[in-house]
């Protein structure tokens, strides 16, 4: 009854027009501001409780939004809140404390589950129970607060799993809860390992009654790997893993290889906040994505005898330099997380609305979400790429970025595509301008009809001194002495644009920085790059499962 009352109390009046300079809000919602303390022995327990509560509060309507502190991995929460205010007419009332949040929202929960910071997986299990039983998660210190707000104990995990291995804990939780959980989505609550955890995506998992775990996809942990395979096999065929792999127990490459082997999509990260809120919006009425192409899609260009550079920012757009000074001063392609069409449409609209003519959006990674295509089962490749094509059409994107680090470990091994994989992409995407590949450098290259596939020749480490970046680029230009030379550069997320402009100015000779679409059109006119695919003899850092 209380819930019905609160749903009704939301003012969901349509913004039917401006009333002078003070339009009525289309939606009243609440916002909390977090500080940056995610230490297990510090600010985590309260934040873990509030993020789980957010999932319950937002289960039927977008009511609670969290603004993260400056320096948080996702830098857009504050500007996106402002965008909700301006474009969606959301009026936020700020909630100042955990006590105030429970005073206002405790009625969305039926009780609490106690987790034990000394046994980290109990937080995952507690979140799983929270989604199924409409509970908040508390450590022992927060029990009085929960009870003060009328919440009773639903479960207490203290002591239940003492001395158990992670695999034993999750196997037990699987036996207890998996059957009742969402089988389209699962939460991989990995990321930081040890004294700091950032489970900011937990609202999404609690809202969707998902199973939480942080199992390793590492053959060095065979029990965890075997159980992780069971979870992946148990998801529905078009399933999605939200979150991120557990640092310290496995690698991004291992986990993404495994999920791709099951044809599952990966949506990162475990620190991604507010999905329970963001997912309940659509694009504003009449809004339509229009990209910023520099050339018509059917243009035929002819390259000159010079060096062409194109820069791509492929890490999560919200993680990157979007909100930092300098964007727009040079052509930069941005990989958009295409799944956000479903999960965070307002965020995509925000990026579009704040784009400059130098910002060009591309699709990826590898498909509708982050996947390693060399490992996607053949039967799943077509359906997945159909999803990717539909999302790219919505976002007016004509370049697909591909990445397969299954044989790599960061910068060791190779990041190349087999010829079979390349054949599949060319068949699946007849209407793209071209493809780009890699994260670090790679050497898969091709040109079929007017569609080139170019891999990164350089990756800019944000910590690398700029004079060495200039020397690296100069050396690539010297080594690739034929003109035109097409040099594709990956800009790591935290590089700032102003420093890149300084690097470009220090390069010698006829060098031109061009937008990615123009770069690919030019690369289609004169193939000075060697066609190449992953070769069986290429070094492989991770041999696979």
């Amino acid at each position, binding site marked *: 009854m209380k819930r019905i009352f609160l749903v009704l109390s939301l003012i969901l009046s349509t913004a039917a027009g401006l009333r002078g300079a003070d339009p009525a809000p289309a939606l009243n919602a609440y916002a909390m501001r977090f500080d940056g303390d995610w230490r297990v022995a510090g600010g985590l327990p309260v934040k873990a409780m509030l993020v789980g509560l957010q999932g319950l509060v937002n289960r039927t309507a977008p009511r609670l939004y969290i603004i993260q502190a400056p320096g948080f991995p996702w830098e857009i929460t504050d500007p996106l809140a402002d965008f909700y205010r301006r474009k969606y007419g959301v009026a936020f009332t700020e909630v100042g404390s955990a006590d105030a949040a429970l005073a206002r929202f405790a009625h969305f929960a039926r009780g609490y589950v106690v987790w034990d910071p000394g046994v980290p997986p109990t937080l995952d299990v507690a979140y799983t129970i929270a989604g199924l039983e409409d509970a908040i998660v508390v450590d022992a210190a927060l029990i009085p607060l929960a009870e003060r707000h009328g919440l009773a104990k639903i479960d207490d995990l203290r002591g239940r799993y003492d001395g158990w291995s992670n695999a034993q804990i999750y196997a037990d939780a699987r036996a207890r809860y998996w059957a009742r959980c969402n089988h389209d989505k699962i939460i991989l609550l990995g990321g930081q390992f040890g004294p700091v955890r950032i489970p900011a995506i937990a609202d999404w998992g609690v809202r969707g009654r998902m199973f939480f775990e942080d199992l390793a996809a590492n053959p060095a942990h065979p029990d965890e790997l075997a159980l992780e395979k069971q979870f992946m096999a148990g998801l529905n065929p078009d399933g999605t893993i939200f979150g991120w792999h557990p640092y310290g127990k496995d690698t991004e490459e291992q986990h993404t290889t495994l999920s791709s082997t099951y044809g599952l999509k990966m949506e990162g990260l475990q620190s991604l906040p507010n999905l329970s809120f963001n997912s309940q919006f659509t694009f504003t009425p009449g809004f339509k994505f229009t990209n910023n192409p520099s050339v018509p899609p059917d243009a035929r260009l002819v390259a000159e005898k010079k060096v062409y550079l194109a820069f791509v920012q492929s890490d999560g757009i919200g993680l990157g330099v979007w909100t930092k000074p300098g964007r727009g001063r040079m052509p930069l392609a941005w990989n958009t997380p295409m799944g956000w069409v479903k999960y965070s449409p307002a965020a995509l609209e925000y990026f579009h609305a704040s784009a400059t003519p130098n910002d060009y959006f591309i699709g990826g990674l590898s498909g509708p979400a982050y996947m390693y295509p060399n490992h996607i089962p053949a039967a799943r490749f077509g359906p997945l790429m159909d999803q990717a094509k539909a999302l790219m059409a919505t976002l007016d994107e004509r370049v697909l970025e591909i990445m397969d680090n299954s044989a790599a*470990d*960061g*910068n*060791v091994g190779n990041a190349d595509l087999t010829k079979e994989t390349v054949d599949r992409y060319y068949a699946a995407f007849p209407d793209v301008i071209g493809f780009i590949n890699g994260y*670090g*450098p*790679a*050497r898969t*290259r091709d040109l079929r009809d007017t569609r080139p596939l170019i*891999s*990164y*020749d*350089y*990756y*800019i*480490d944000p*910590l*690398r*001194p700029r*004079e*060495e970046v200039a*020397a*690296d680029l*100069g*050396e*690539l230009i*010297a*080594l*690739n*002495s*034929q003109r035109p*030379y*097409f*040099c594709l550069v990956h800009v790591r997320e935290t590089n700032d644009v102003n420093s890149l402009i300084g690097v470009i100015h220090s390069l010698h000779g006829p060098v031109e920085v061009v937008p990615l679409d123009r770069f690919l059109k030019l690369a289609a006119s004169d193939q*000075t*790059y*060697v066609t190449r695919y992953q070769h069986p*003899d290429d070094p492989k*850092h991770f041999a696979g499962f």
Partner: protein
Amino acid sequence: MIRTYPKLFLALLLLPFAARAGDPGFNGRWHLDTGHSTALDGWSAMDLVITAGGTGVSLRHDMTWRSTHVSAVDAIDTAQPVEIGDFFRIDQRHMAVYALPKAAAHVRAAWLDGGRTLRVEAEVPLEVSQGVRTMRIYDEYRLLEGDTVLELIELHSTRERPLVYYFNKATP
């Protein structure tokens, strides 16, 4: 002539022996001083293990990136050029410049400065976007005063800036 330049004559007489003898201070393990060296790219730490005996010199590179460890040896000879199939260079791993596995590098080396400097010159075949290219690498390993610091200066025929690395002698 001999009477006029006795020291020069003596030096020329001893040159072949000097060229074959490296200072024993080179031998051992050296830790890269990352704070004073050119920034590595894609590697976080490096040890150099030098073993010199006769005219042969073994340069072992123990490279680290997070939990990844790579070890590679360049076995050179100060008396004659050698062909090295898997020549290891301290590469900038974020550049698409790849060793050619089946192509050998032509490598020459010599002791200079009374054995206090080891010069290594290599012509290294590499794969880049546009095909196969050869990079000429010129290295000087210099044992600095006190024998606790090793300086490596590396020049590439394709790079404007020298790469300068400093290593501290590991305690046995």
